């Protein structure tokens, strides 16, 4: 596994004409999958003053009694308030992990793969006239691409992604706390990361949930992270923390490591599934467009 030096010139090649054609193809596929939806009619799950019934809740003092469901009151003698989905433009936040560990990858760094994925999802969002924003993070937030809509803004997306600086330790908790503090407008938050956070991923994702954002989790890893070709006496150095560990790699140890990696990924998957958070796991050997199609078919991103 080698950490490649990040160069802006290398990233330019990520977003060439061929890439743009692929994006267009993906957009057409997305339209085919969800034909009939009108643009900008995707709604947030914000409960508010819309016209489509969403739910009931108990009446409390101060609530607008115009929304009391009198039919229920008549039948059950209970004051329940009718809730409606608030209609507003969907905000899509692309949280891109730009920590040091994302630079790892033999064929291509995870970061490059993540950038292409983010660019593709952004294109779909922009084309659907959603408000799309990109926020790179590691131990904090590293700038942001202001919300934009319309396919024509895709080049700004490319430019922004090309300029993302990778580095730092992954700290989901701190980064996402900072994110919810800076972004009051609720919306979908697509977190593209390897989730290699020494502090754990739970706090960060819960922060999003508690603040009424809709997390959408995509976990990336390099195939050699899951199955490292190591042997002999080594000093393993964490590429983010620099922490060394002396190990003698044996077949049994490697097997245990593989199991441990799988278990970690399963932990993330279980966490997300239990909380109805859309979750996708892939490695960099899978073509990004294939992943995007998988995301489309699974639903959740396209509404």
């Amino acid at each position, binding site marked *: 596994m080698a950490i490649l030096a990040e160069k802006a010139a290398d990233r330019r090649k990520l977003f060439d004409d061929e890439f743009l054609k692929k994006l267009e193809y993906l957009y057409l596929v997305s339209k085919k999958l969800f034909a009939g939806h009108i643009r900008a009619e995707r709604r947030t799950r914000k409960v508010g003053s819309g016209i489509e019934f969403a739910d009931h809740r108990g009446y409390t003092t101060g609530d607008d009694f115009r929304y009391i469901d009198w039919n229920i009151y008549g039948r059950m003698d209970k004051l329940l308030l009718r809730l409606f989905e608030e209609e507003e433009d969907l905000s899509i936040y692309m949280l891109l992990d730009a920590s040091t560990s994302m630079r790892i990858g033999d064929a291509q760094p995870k970061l490059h793969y993540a950038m292409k994925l983010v660019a593709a999802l952004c294109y779909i969002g922009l084309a659907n006239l959603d408000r799309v924003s990109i926020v790179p993070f590691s131990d904090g937030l590293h700038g942001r691409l202001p919300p934009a809509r319309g396919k024509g803004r895709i080049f700004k997306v490319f430019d922004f992604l090309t300029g993302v600086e990778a580095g730092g330790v992954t700290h989901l908790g701190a980064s996402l706390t900072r994110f919810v503090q800076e972004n009051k407008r609720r919306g979908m938050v697509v977190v593209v990361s390897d989730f*290699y956070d*020494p502090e754990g991923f739970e706090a960060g994702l819960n922060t999003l949930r508690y603040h009424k954002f809709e997390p959408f989790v995509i976990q990336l890893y390099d195939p050699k992270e899951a199955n490292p070709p190591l042997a*002999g*006496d080594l*000093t*393993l150095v964490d590429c*983010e923390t620099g922490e060394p560990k*002396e190990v003698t790699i044996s077949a049994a140890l490697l097997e245990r490591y593989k199991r441990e990696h799988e278990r*970690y990924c399963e932990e993330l998957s279980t966490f997300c599934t239990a909380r109805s958070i859309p979750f996708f796991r892939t490695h960099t050997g899978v073509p990004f467009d294939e992943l995007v199609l998988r995301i489309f078919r699974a639903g959740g991103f396209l509404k």
Partner: protein
Amino acid sequence: MTFTPPLAWSTVAVLAGALAALTVVAYILKMRRRRHEVPFSKLWQRVLDEKDSSSWWKRLKRLISLAVQLTLLTLIVGAALDPKIGNAEAGGKNVVVIVDASASMKAKGEGEDAKPRIELAKDEARKVLRGLGGADLAMLVRMDGQATALSRFEGDVPQLVRAASGIFATDTPADLSRALQAAADALRGRREPLIVIIGDGAYGDDMRARVSWEAGAKIPMNTVDLAGIDVRFVPVGEDGRNAGIVAFNVRRYLANKLSYEALVEVENFGKEPEPVRLTLFAGEEAIDVKTMNLAPGERRRLIYPDLGGGDDRALRAQLETLDASEKPRADAFALDDTAWALLPERKKQRVLLVTPDNLYLEAALLLDPNIAVDKLRPEAYATEVADGKLGGYSVAVFDGWAPTALPAMPAIYFNPPADRSPVAVRGQLTRPFITEVNPDHPLTRWVALADVNIDKASALAPAEGDAVIARSIRDPLIVAGKREGKKFVVYGFGLDGTDLMLRVAFPVMLVNTLDWFAGDDAELITTYRTGRVWNIPVDPDEALREVEVRGPGGTVKAPVANGRARLYGQHAGVYSITTPDGVLGLAANLADPQESAIAPRGELILGGKKLEAPPSFTPSVSRSIWVILVCVGLAMLAVEWWTYNRRVTV
């Protein structure tokens, strides 16, 4: 348990300590590991936490590994100390077993099944070696014309027995003094030294006398100091009748090289009269047969004069002992029943005499029947050369004249013109006297030139490499040498102004000159005795460094120094030596009455002391266990390798 350290104990201790310290330091030092970056060390930490739950086992494994290394080191050092277990008493003997492998050990006893003495000696040697005590060390020495150590001092009896079984008898006489000296030198400083001589005891009186037993006594040269050494003797062999050839040589007559004479000496070494038949062969052709009766101890010399005929230069004398019906019967010692000799090569030379007319010179040349002389006048020489008619001549003699070009054959010049002489002329002398003659040159053999009268002569200026044969004070008068690969002799004076041709020296010198040209050497030795180092003249130019010698024992390379090849004669027979100039032959015979006297001695007296039979050694079971230690070490290494590769110990 006893040890035989290869080094001093202190050195061994220091080495072992240093190696142990190095091993421990290697374990203490932190291993430099290859660095590898991982994206998320927490995963590895989880794995290692699980593994480290048995960290006491990890530490124990490390300690076990160190213990294994130290044990391996101990085993290696232990094996190097050659430990022996069993009753290995501290006072073991140091024994040199000398096995006689001289020519007489080829003698056999009576009867068809009788073993040669050498086989009996090997049996005795094996018996002695197998009887060694546990702490005894033995060294095996083969004694013939040389003393050859076949082992070092060691207690490995099977190894010693194998070495003893490989001994063979040679055709050389025994050199007891040399073997004793070698044994005494090897035993010097060793405890309880013992020499065991196994042989027939047939050694020369002088060798047996040249022994000193007194400690601290002044010892003359060539005397072996055996003070403090226990010397024992194991006699082998039984008496047998033997008559043999003790001398055989042959030479050509100087005046008539077509004929030669041979000398043969035969002797009866038995105690009874022996009827014998002596046959002389030239090649495969018998040229003389004599039957005679040899009285006990009789030595008879036979000279065969005026032998000739046959082209084979190899002569062979064959002696057969006869029974009552005059039929050959087996002899106890066959080696001295055959002897070889080689005749010096026979050459007849054609001489071209170029002279106006010189009766004295012509007559002197005609005296030698080995040469054919043709006369030619100087003015006809150029025509003959041009016609190519001079190719068959082996020597040219120029009298008072010399050709402009050097002839294509060796030449003698008498008073050549200064401008055509192969040797430069630096002046003229009037009535010179020969004041100095080179006595080592073949030309001056049997020649006296001191009172030769010379009217006038040219003082010659020899070139580098030329030999001055005679000079008058400082002026060379006769010079010999080589030009363009052809030998020449220049006389600085003419035969018409000297009384040299009236003297006996003149024809002798001419014959010497022609012999020198032809490469003949009347003193050339072609018959050698075995058991000695032969100095064989092979290269007068002294440029040769090595020659190939093919003989009865096979083909060997012999070094050449100062023009002589040096070769130790181990086998009797005919040898051929290949040199750039051709193939030389020589013959080698035992020719040693002492060896032919095969009657074994039941007792051996050295320096006036009778040698006893060997003592019985203290038998004990002593076994070297270094092999076991090495095997254990290898087994440990194998186990460690296996466990390492199975990642059990990592």
